[in-house]
C-alpha cells in the first residue's frame, strides 16, 4: 500500500520545523529517517495531513565531545553512530547495540533520535541509553529543556517529548574504559528483540567496580536491572558470581506475552542474557 495523501514540508532549521509543528499541531507528524513512520503510514495506521521532514536540518546531525559528555545529534544515522570512534571509546554500549538494530539498509536511513523518540519497547537503543544515564534535549517553542533518561520513556511508544516539541540531541555521560556488551535474543535474522540485555561494567583488576544494565522488551519501557547492578559491585567476573547476581534480572519487570514467548519465558531469558552480557562486558 501507499500512504494516504499528505503535504510534505522540508524545513532547514529547527525553528522552521517548530513553527510548522505549532501551525499544524495534531495534523502533523515529524519524520526523521522514516524507517518506522513510513511502514506505519503505508499500512494506514497513521495518516497525517502534514509530514515535517527533519532530513534537511544539518545542525541535527553529528557527534561531538563536550567535556565529560558525548553529544549525539537526533538526526545522526544508525550507521554513523555505529562507526563513530568517540562513542566506541566513551560509550561502547551504544556502539555494540546499534549494529544489532534492524539491517544495513535500515541503518543507512534510520536515526538515533528517531529510534529513541519512537520508543518501541523492543527497540535496541532505549536500554543502552537508559543504562548510560543519557540526557535528552527536547526543544519547543519556549526553548530547550533537558530530560533525564529515567523520565524520558513514559510508556509504549510514549516519551516526554511534547506534541509541540522535537528531540534535538542526546547527551551521553562518558564511560571511558568501561567494557560493554549487548546480548540480543531473536529467532530469525533482523528480528526485533524478544529480549535483549545491554551491560557495561567498570573493572578494577578482576573485580567489578560498577555495572549498568539496561533491559529491552521486559516492560512497556526500557528498564534498568538495578538489583543486579548493586549485587555485582565488588564481585569477581566469574560465571558463578555473575550468574548468582543475574538471578534478580527480572525483578520489577513486566514483560509482554506474545507469539515469541510468554512473560515467564522472558523473565528466564532476562537472567540468562544478563549473565552472558555481563561476563562478555567484563572481558579485558
Amino acid at each position, binding site marked *: 500500500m501507499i500512504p494516504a495523501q499528505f503535504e510534505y514540508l522540508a524545513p532547514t532549521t529547527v525553528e522552521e520545523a517548530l513553527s510548522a509543528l505549532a501551525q499544524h499541531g495534531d495534523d502533523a507528524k515529524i519524520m526523521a529517517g522514516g524507517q518506522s513512520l513510513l511502514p506505519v503510514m503505508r499500512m494506514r495506521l497513521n495518516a497525517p495531513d502534514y509530514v515535517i521532514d527533519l532530513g534537511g536540518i544539518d545542525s541535527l546531525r553529528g557527534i561531538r565531545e563536550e567535556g565529560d559528555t558525548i553529544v549525539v545529534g537526533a538526526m545522526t544515522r544508525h550507521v554513523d553512530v555505529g562507526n563513530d570512534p568517540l562513542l566506541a571509546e566513551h560509550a561502547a554500549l551504544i556502539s555494540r547495540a546499534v549494529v544489532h538494530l534492524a*539491517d544495513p*539498509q535500515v541503518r*543507512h536511513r534510520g536515526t538515533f533520535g528517531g529510534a529513541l523518540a519512537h520508543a518501541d519497547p523492543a527497540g535496541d537503543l532505549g536500554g543502552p541509553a537508559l543504562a548510560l544515564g543519557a540526557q535528552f534535549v527536547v526543544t519547543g517553542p519556549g526553548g530547550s529543556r533537558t530530560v533525564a533518561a529515567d523520565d524520558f520513556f513514559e510508556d509504549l511508544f510514549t516519551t516526554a517529548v511534547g506534541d509541540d516539541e522535537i528531540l534535538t540531541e542526546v547527551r551521553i555521560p562518558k564511560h571511558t574504559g568501561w567494557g560493554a556488551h549487548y546480548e540480543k535474543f531473536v529467532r530469525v535474522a533482523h528480528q526485533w528483540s524478544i529480549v535483549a540485555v545491554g551491560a557495561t561494567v567498570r573493572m578494577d583488576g578482576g573485580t567489578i567496580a560498577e555495572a549498568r544494565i539496561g533491559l529491552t522488551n521486559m516492560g512497556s519501557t526500557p528498564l534498568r536491572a538495578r538489583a543486579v547492578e548493586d549485587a555485582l559491585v565488588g564481585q569477581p567476573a566469574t560465571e558463578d558470581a555473575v550468574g548468582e547476581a543475574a538471578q534478580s534480572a527480572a525483578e520489577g519487570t513486566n514483560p509482554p506475552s506474545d507469539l515469541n514467548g510468554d512473560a515467564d519465558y522472558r523473565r528466564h531469558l532476562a537472567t540468562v542474557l544478563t549473565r552472558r552480557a555481563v561476563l562478555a562486558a567484563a572481558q579485558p
Partner: protein
Amino acid sequence: MTRIEMTVDGARVSDDVEPRMLLVHYLREKLGKTGTLVGCDTSNCGACTVHLDGHSVKSCNVLAVQAAGHEVTTIEGLAQGGDLHPVQEAFHDCHALQCGYCTPGMIMQSVDLLNDNPHPTEEEVRLGLEGNLCRCTGYHNIVKAVLQAAGGASS
C-alpha cells in the same frame, strides 16, 4: 504535486510527483526501471534495495521527494558498457538464484557490503545480507557468489 530532480543510473531526471509516492514506485512507474522489485508491504524483504548516494536503502521505505537532489543507482545502472558488474557475474557463475525475485535487491546489497568490506568472512556476508529475504535458494549459493566476487573467502 512537488517538483523533484535527481540522478538515476547516471541520468538527470525531473518530475512532478505526489509527496506520498515511494521511491520504488517512482523508479518503476515513472522511469520504467522495473528491475527494482517490490516483494513486501513491511520493509522486510529487501527486494527493492537501491543505492542512495552510494549506500543501500530499501526504496519502498523512502519517499521519492526524500531522494530529490540525490543520486540513485538501481540494478539497471550496475553493468558498465555491456559488461556485467563482478557481483552480477558471480551470481551467474554460482547459480545464486532460482526464481530470481530477490536477486536485484541481493546484488545491490552485496555491492554495498563489498564497498564497505572488500574481503568479508562468510559470517560477515550472512550478517550483511540479513535485510534481504530469499524464499528459494536457502542462501547458500548467494553467500558463495558474494565470496567469489570478493576474490574468495577470507578467514
